[in-house]
């Protein structure tokens, strides 16, 4: 079936663009970058249809595995480069290559006037390669390879505008925070190798499923929790979510592809993949649910007061990822993956639409300086409306289906979680429509800002303008997907994979309540930002303390700074640098140098330059050798 072609095509694109891109025309770079991803997508389609996915029957009940070669063989441990495709992987492959292709096309338009054009597309293709390795890998180590690779690409692309300090800082932050999570993940992999003697998904999960649930020893919980720590890093959950909002420093297509649609869902994918382990560790599963819920809630509150359009969507991403983990934690793995898919559609669309808005505003990202854009960018307006209703959970659009599957499962698990989730859904609808109304309705607030004050614009005209077709066509496709994506019945498709009593079909009123919450959120946003714009300011004034907390994101960044970053920097500076490095290491090195120089200073007097003194030294030396031999008692 040649599964290896799927990741290798983007890798080839990366190689061509990365090595030769500097001398290639933009058209050629576009063709290589988007073409390789398109071919990869087509190859996914072809593979899936060969496996009978699009026909009837019950395809892919068993995973289809391809073994390429043995990578590591050490003792009992045998790790191969294996790719496997099962129902979960099929869903992820479709999301990654499909949405990825659309975003590549969009980026062609969005990046048209940016420097480092070939570098950008080379990184994007490299990202696609690692992401596909991540979802195709049939063992934990290959998953980890993809996991680290996407982290690297995320770092490279966040810091794409490397002349800007804040962009490189954000890249470093993402990389370092992810290292913390990866540390947990690698510990989990070690534990798995230790206890199961294998890293293959099939072997490990087969052994786990053979165990009775009650036998979930402490180490099973430990493995599950460590895996989840990895997921909190990659998927931006409390306490490691702080990098994702800053990651918006990267170009907008990157935010859409990596930090909304694909990479950040890697944690959800990994936990779902390891569902067998989590189901044997109920304590860990509860932690997943609670962390997910808390993240969903707090990130939503932080999204309420953001003024940067991308930051609003960034907190929204964190919040939606929290929903996914809530779904996983309450046992609805298929609902979690369902939400991954619908979220990929509507959140990619939100970001791409935001990019289109930013493009129209010539680089302005501040919602307070937008307004009234509906007339100027009609396509962006309509597509963003589709995305906003989808994320707000308005039936019958995609977000409604997946979010309600999760909330229903949460209700079965613990009603209080359901209520918090519903409240969060209301907030989600509110902040998304707040951004929407602020950008597209009301009086234009952008005359004040000089149109060419920001770097992005070199078109040389002031009024906002609609984006080129290469940008709005992907928007339109994603808009359609956001509207109808909910009818792709992912939970049914994934049913054979998660051997669970399928959750009772959601009690109708739970769906009604959450829809009502979403509608109330939209109505409130409309009231606050369309009808009487004085209200939010009044509220902000009368609740100034909570508002300040939310506006400053609960001071979490400051808290981490003072708790972790500053002690580390201070410790490095005053102890490691001034004491250990200057005193210890430099002392040893300089000492060695000084010793050699002093000895040399003495010995150099022998080099008098007079040949006869050299001759004398030779004679003296031979006499000493003879004397030494004599003292030692001859040569024998």
């Amino acid at each position, binding site marked *: 079936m040649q599964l290896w072609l799927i990741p290798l095509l983007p890798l080839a694109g990366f190689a061509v663009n990365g090595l030769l891109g500097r001398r290639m025309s933009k058209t050629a770079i576009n063709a290589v970058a988007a073409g390789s991803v398109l071919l990869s997508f087509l190859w996914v389609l072809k593979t899936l249809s060969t496996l009978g996915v699009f026909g009837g029957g019950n395809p892919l009940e068993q995973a289809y595995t391809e073994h390429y070669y043995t990578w590591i063989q050490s003792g009992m441990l045998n790790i191969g480069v294996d790719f496997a495709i099962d129902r979960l992987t099929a869903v992820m492959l479709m999301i990654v290559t499909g949405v990825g292709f659309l975003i590549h096309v969009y980026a062609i338009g969005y990046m048209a006037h940016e420097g480092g054009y070939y570098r950008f597309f080379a990184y994007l293709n490299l990202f696609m390669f690692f992401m596909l390795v991540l979802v195709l890998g049939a063992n934990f180590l290959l998953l980890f390879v993809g996991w680290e690779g996407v982290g690297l690409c995320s770092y490279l692309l966040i810091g794409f505008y490397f002349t800007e300090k804040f962009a490189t800082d954000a890249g470093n932050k993402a990389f370092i925070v992810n290292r913390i999570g990866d540390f947990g993940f690698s510990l989990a992999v070690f534990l798995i190798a230790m206890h199961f003697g294998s890293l293959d998904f099939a072997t490990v999960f087969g052994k786990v499923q053979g165990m009775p649930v009650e036998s979930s020893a402490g180490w099973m919980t430990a493995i599950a929790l460590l895996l989840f720590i990895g997921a909190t890093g990659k998927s931006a959950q409390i306490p490691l979510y702080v990098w994702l909002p800053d990651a918006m420093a990267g170009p907008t297509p990157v935010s859409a592809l990596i930090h909304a649609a694909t990479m950040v869902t890697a944690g959800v994918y990994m936990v779902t993949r390891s569902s067998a382990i989590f189901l044997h560790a109920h304590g860990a599963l509860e932690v997943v649910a609670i962390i997910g819920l808390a993240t969903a809630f707090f990130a939503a509150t932080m999204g309420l007061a953001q003024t940067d359009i991308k930051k609003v969507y960034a907190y929204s991403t964190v919040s939606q990822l929290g929903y996914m983990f809530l779904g996983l934690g309450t046992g609805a793995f298929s609902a979690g993956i369902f939400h991954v898919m619908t979220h990929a559609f509507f959140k990619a669309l939100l970001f791409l639409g935001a990019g289109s808005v930013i493009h129209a505003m010539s680089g302005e990202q501040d919602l307070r300086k937008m307004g009234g854009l509906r007339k100027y960018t009609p396509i962006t307006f309509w597509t963003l409306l589709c995305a906003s209703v989808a994320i707000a959970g308005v039936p019958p659009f995609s977000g409604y289906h997946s979010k309600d599957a999760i909330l229903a499962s949460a209700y079965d698990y613990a009603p209080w979680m359901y209520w918090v989730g519903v409240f969060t859904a209301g907030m989600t609808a509110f902040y998304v429509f707040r951004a929407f109304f602020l950008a597209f309705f009301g009086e234009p607030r952008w005359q004040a800002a000089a149109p060419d004050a920001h770097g992005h614009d070199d078109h040389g005209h002031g009024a906002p303008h609609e984006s080129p077709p290469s940008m709005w066509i992907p928007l339109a496709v994603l808009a359609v997907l956001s509207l109808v994506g909910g009818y792709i019945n992912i939970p049914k498709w994934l049913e054979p994979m998660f051997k669970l009593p399928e959750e009772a079909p959601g009690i109708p009123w739970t769906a009604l309540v959450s829809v009502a919450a979403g509608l109330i959120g939209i109505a409130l946003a409309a009231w606050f930002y369309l009808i009487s714009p004085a209200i939010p300011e009044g509220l902000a004034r009368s609740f100034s303390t909570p508002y300040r907390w939310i506006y400053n994101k609960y001071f979490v960044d400051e808290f981490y700074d003072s708790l972790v970053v500053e002690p580390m920097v201070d410790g490095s500076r005053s102890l490691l640098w001034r004491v250990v490095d200057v005193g210890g290491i430099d002392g040893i090195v300089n000492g060695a140098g000084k010793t050699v120089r002093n000895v040399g200073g003495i010995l150099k007097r022998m*080099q*008098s*330059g*007079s*040949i*006869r003194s050299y*001759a*004398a030294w030779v*004679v003296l030396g031979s006499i000493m050798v003879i004397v030494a031999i004599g003292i030692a008692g001859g040569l024998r």
Partner: protein
Amino acid sequence: MPPLPPSVPLSWYLSLSLILFVLGIAGFLFRRNIITVFMSIELMLNAVNLSFITFSYKLKQVDGHIFAFFVMVVAAAEAAVGLAIILTVFKNRQTLEIDELSSLKN
């Protein structure tokens, strides 16, 4: 190998070799003319040759002879190269005073 006169003991040959060698060293160290120094080196080589031959005779083994021949060959080659160097030095510096040939220092 014809027999040596029995009245001459082995130690005489070795003593002669030692005297020649020490003379060579002394000349090597204390003479200033390069040619003299060079001749002193030849003297030392021949002193060594003499002791080789002596031991070779005493031990009734041919190894010493072979070594002596080697030394002679090397000495001949060395004399050729050495004299050539000395000639060149004299051409360039108009002196054979060994203490003045220290331009490589500093």
